[in-house]
């Protein structure tokens, strides 16, 4: 009994610590954005609820917040979609088809993903400049796909490996071509994996900063992290309230996405495929 109890306490304490540790910065962000004076912890100011900063972010045309948000959503969605579009058939081929040296290929892909971004950026800048793509969506989408692809491939491979090979063989016997198997059997069965991969790729692209700041020049292509970093007050001061309001607003899409897909991710879709 006492051991059970101790376990319960430890789990509760651990969860509590994790929650506080992870959510305090978020709480601070939201609180700052809602405070009349961003320095609400100082003794002179104190906390007074206000939507002033939100109004400023929403109405001030010079901040371009909605441009940034739009750019981010388009770039991230495109990157995530194309990444999975490429990774899914690749993972299927690697897990299902007989192919010499596929393990080697996988490690090669992993090695490629180890390059630090900073080491690529100067060449990438010249490349995009030569193409005339600086400050365009494709200048961001292409590198994001390249960066997310190795991770996507590895994650999808581990999902596909969990799907029993007998499903493929049943589909072959039922008259499917390999493409039909992928589209009609593997993808629906691996849907939780596909969705979590989409989400991961989306979040990666949404948060990316280094490439975004190097390869874009103004609000027509700049994404939210870059945009917020460049927020400036009229006289060059740092508008903390507006920054926090913008940050809060831009985390909303991610929170919604996660909540929406959470059910699909957790759903045990492979249940009942084979004898448990």
């Amino acid at each position, binding site marked *: 009994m006492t051991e059970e109890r101790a376990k319960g306490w430890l789990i509760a304490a651990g969860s509590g610590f994790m929650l506080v540790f992870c959510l305090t910065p978020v709480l601070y962000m939201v609180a700052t954005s809602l405070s009349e004076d961003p320095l609400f912890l100082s003794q002179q100011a104190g906390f007074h609820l206000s939507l002033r900063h939100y109004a400023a972010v929403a109405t001030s045309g010079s901040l371009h917040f909605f441009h940034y948000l739009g750019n981010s959503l388009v770039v991230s969605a495109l990157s995530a979609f194309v990444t999975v579009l490429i990774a899914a058939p690749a993972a299927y081929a690697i897990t299902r088809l007989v192919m010499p040296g596929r393990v080697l290929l996988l490690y090669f892909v992993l090695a490629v993903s180890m390059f630090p971004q900073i080491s690529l950026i100067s060449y990438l800048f010249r490349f995009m400049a030569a193409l005339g793509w600086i400050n365009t969506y494709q200048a961001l989408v292409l590198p994001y796909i390249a960066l997310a692809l190795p991770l996507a491939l590895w994650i999808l491979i581990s999902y596909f490996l969990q799907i029993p090979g007998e499903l493929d063989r049943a589909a072959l016997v039922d*008259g499917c071509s390999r493409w039909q198997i992928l589209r009609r059997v593997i993808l629906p069965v691996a849907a939780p994996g596909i969705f979590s991969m989409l989400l991961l790729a989306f979040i990666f692209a949404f948060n990316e900063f280094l490439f975004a700041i190097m390869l874009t020049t103004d609000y027509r292509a700049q994404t939210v992290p870059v945009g917020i970093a460049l927020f400036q007050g009229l006289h060059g001061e740092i508008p903390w309230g507006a920054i926090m309001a913008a940050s809060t607003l831009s985390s909303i899409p991610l929170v919604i996405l996660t909540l929406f897909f959470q059910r699909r991710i957790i759903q045990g879709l492979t249940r009942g495929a084979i*004898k448990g």
Partner: protein
Amino acid sequence: MNIRLVRLSKEFISARGRTPAVRTIDLEIRESEFFVLLGPSGCGKSTVLNLIAGLEKPTGGEIWFDDRLVASAAERVFESPRDRNIAMVFQSYALYPHLSVFGNIAFPLEIAGEGKKRIAAAVERVASMLGLTELLAARPGELSGGQRQRVAIARALVRHPTVFLLDEPLSNLDAQLRASTRTELRSLQRRLGITTVYVTHDQVEAMSLGDRIAVLREGRLEQIGRPEELFEEPANTFVASFIASPPMNLLEIELFLEAGRWLLRIDDRELMVPDCMVDPCDELKPGAWILGIRPEHIRIHPVGAAAVLKERVEAVEPMGREVLFHFLVGSQKLMALTAEGHFAAACPGEVLALDPDLKRAHLFSRNGKRVVNRWRSSAV
């Protein structure tokens, strides 16, 4: 559909080298036959099935469906499963978890591009044949093992396949359900008359289902025959010990001639060999042989009778209707089965007299091959 395998072989090539799974097998499966591939795990029986299905490419030999060549290594012919019009039931059933029972059964027809109405009618028909009508809306995850298995069979039959392949379809069911499904499967096959190839490692299933059985070991064919042929005339010690449970006793013996009569020696016990066992057999020579005798062909007597074998009971195994006794003859294990109830009380350590019915025994050479004597061949 008549299926012919001609010098069929399959090697798997991996980083560790070549592994032969099927080694030059020749066999013919006849129209409407229920044919069983039987063998221990790793004997290549599932590979043979996959080769027939078109899920594997042979590395040697040919497969013929009637007079159509569907796979040939030499002529580079290979028809994919969709072109062979086969249906298959897998050990794990391999139902599509994201589709309903209806969706699962309809799947092959949808892939074939059938119209919605015809699909619905065909699914209705097989579903009612297999008692699945009420389950059509359920997902595979909500079904019991037996129901899943019936869905897998329905999905296989909905297309009117010309060949029906089953890969250990009963091994995931519990014992009772397995027995009843076995009977159902047999009568279903009789009614539909589809050429059926059935893979199993369970000799009881093989014996009760098969019109003919092929026993495989390490990718080679050990024997093909009707169930009673395998039981009565096992071609070698492997088949002899694989068919029937408890298996045939295999004893190392020595044959010798004394005053014109054949005798056999087990350990230090000597037995007279009945004429019919050795009679017109040309191969017989004095020396070491293997004697095969089924446990039910050894009678047990109380000691005192004029029996040659008086052996100590090592273990007693009641099997319900019968009792199985384990003995040690010298260093060799010997099992005897009796239906006589009063021996059931015998305890380990007790000495009983054994009377093997040598007229029903088999003689194998030291390399395991059965010695055919003319008397026995004509008798069966």
